[in-house]
């Protein structure tokens, strides 16, 4: 769970695999796709946990991956997870974001909190739970997943979704109910 705190002296098979993936991408940038797919969710949720605005979170996530791609040839494996490097880039991007927003005090506070060598286990737990939840959403039946995305990410009303999917409003409400019921059953009583 607390991957960033795992001792670096004895790299796990998982870490060895990750190292191979990073080195493959350094040798052939077209393989950066693999790293993107593995780490996108974590980076996004790391950012959104600090920047409570979807547009800003998307902009910063984009910035992080563009920077990671640009600097990948200079990345040196030192035993820490690749995600730790991405989180560091994200931390700097978030601080810059708040400085640009003239929220100096918040930026100073944030900079101080992000200066810690490791993320707290609470932070990592939050991110992992969100990643897990997101993947459960992705595994919903396609029609339910689409209703969830339209309703909660695109901010569409039940009526709009019904028109777009050529279904009745009652059917959309049923799909919404089933989707949330399935998700709740899968995560149990825990917070998402």
């Amino acid at each position, binding site marked *: 769970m607390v991957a960033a705190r795992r001792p670096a002296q004895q790299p796990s098979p998982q870490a060895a695999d990750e190292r191979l993936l990073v080195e493959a991408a350094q040798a052939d940038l*077209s393989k950066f796709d693999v790293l*993107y*797919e593995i780490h996108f*969710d974590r980076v996004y949720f790391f950012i959104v946990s600090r920047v409570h605005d979807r547009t800003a979170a998307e902009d910063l996530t984009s910035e992080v*991956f563009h920077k990671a*791609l640009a600097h990948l040839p200079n990345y040196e494996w030192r035993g820490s997870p690749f995600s730790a490097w991405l989180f560091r880039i994200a931390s700097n991007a978030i601080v810059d974001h708040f400085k640009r927003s003239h929220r100096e005090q918040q930026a100073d506070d944030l900079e101080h909190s992000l200066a810690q060598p490791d993320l707290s286990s609470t932070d990592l737990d939050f991110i992992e739970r969100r990643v897990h939840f997101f993947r459960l959403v992705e595994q919903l039946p396609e029609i339910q997943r689409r209703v969830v995305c339209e*309703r*909660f990410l695109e901010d569409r009303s039940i009526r709009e979704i019904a028109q777009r999917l050529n279904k009745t409003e009652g059917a959309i409400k049923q799909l919404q109910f089933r989707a949330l019921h399935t998700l*709740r059953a899968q995560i149990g009583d825990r917070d998402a």
Partner: protein
Amino acid sequence: MPKRSPAEQLDQAISALLSTSQPLPEANSHPSIAALVSLVPSLRSMPRPEFKAALKSELQRRISMKEATVPSPAPAKAVQFRRANFPNIAPYFLVEGAPRFIDFLVAAFEGTERIRVPRPDGSIMHAEVAIGNSVIELGDANEQYPQRQMTTHLYVPDADATFARALQAGAASIYAPTDDHPSGDRWGAATDPFGNTWYIATAKGWVPGPEGVLTVQPYLHVRNAHDMIPFIEAALDAKATGVHKSPDGIVRHATIEIAGATFEIDEASGESQPNPSYLHVYVPDTDAIYAQALAAGAKGVHPPYTAPYGDRAASIIDPFGNTWFLATYLGTTQP
């Protein structure tokens, strides 16, 4: 009043939450409904699938562009078949009013005229203008080689300054340089007085390799671009070094390398309609490539011959309408 279904109750609670950002009072909501409503903040914090896909697409495009601008080192033999001052696949502009076109290239892109071969009537048979580390060739259009409106990608140190100079020199803006271009670079576009399109870009957020970036690259908008890749690989010993396709197989961007130099293609769409071009490329063996190209489906225009300026030259038209001037430098010393 009929009892509402759980789905109705849930939606009412969700609607209240979404419209007021306040949870429905516990008293009004069954615990099982409340448990479902408590998922809403997590659902709203999820990344949009469209964003995740679009960012991946942007990154793939950027990787493709990087591969375009940092070609793999040419084999040692390349030194022997390519003129030293000819690093790129040159767009060959045939225009009505070549002297004015040279003036435009000099004024807009800080070009340096290095060769001008005039005809007796004052028109230009052949000219070369160096721009950055690359070269553009041109001449006056004629009946055999009429004017074509081509697209060229320029990498410059300051896209905004170059764009402003281009407008000053008579170009018309398509769009001013922006940081929002899908490539991730600072990127603008303009049309010159001859109808050619120029993509004016500055690398942003990435560091070119030690070879630097090629200033000039032809950019072809092609109908059925996915068919051009296997053709060009078979015909000209090319290699697609970066191919970015949409999920339905449309080529959004690809970089094609021929003997260490590159050009770019994408699927023609919208404003970017097919633009058959003239291109000049140095290859290790013109005779062999000419024969290979014809076997792959190209049409011969001029079979191989030894030109007075020291190149083994030939020309073909590919199935997409582009004219290729093939050349192999025969000299033993570099000019």
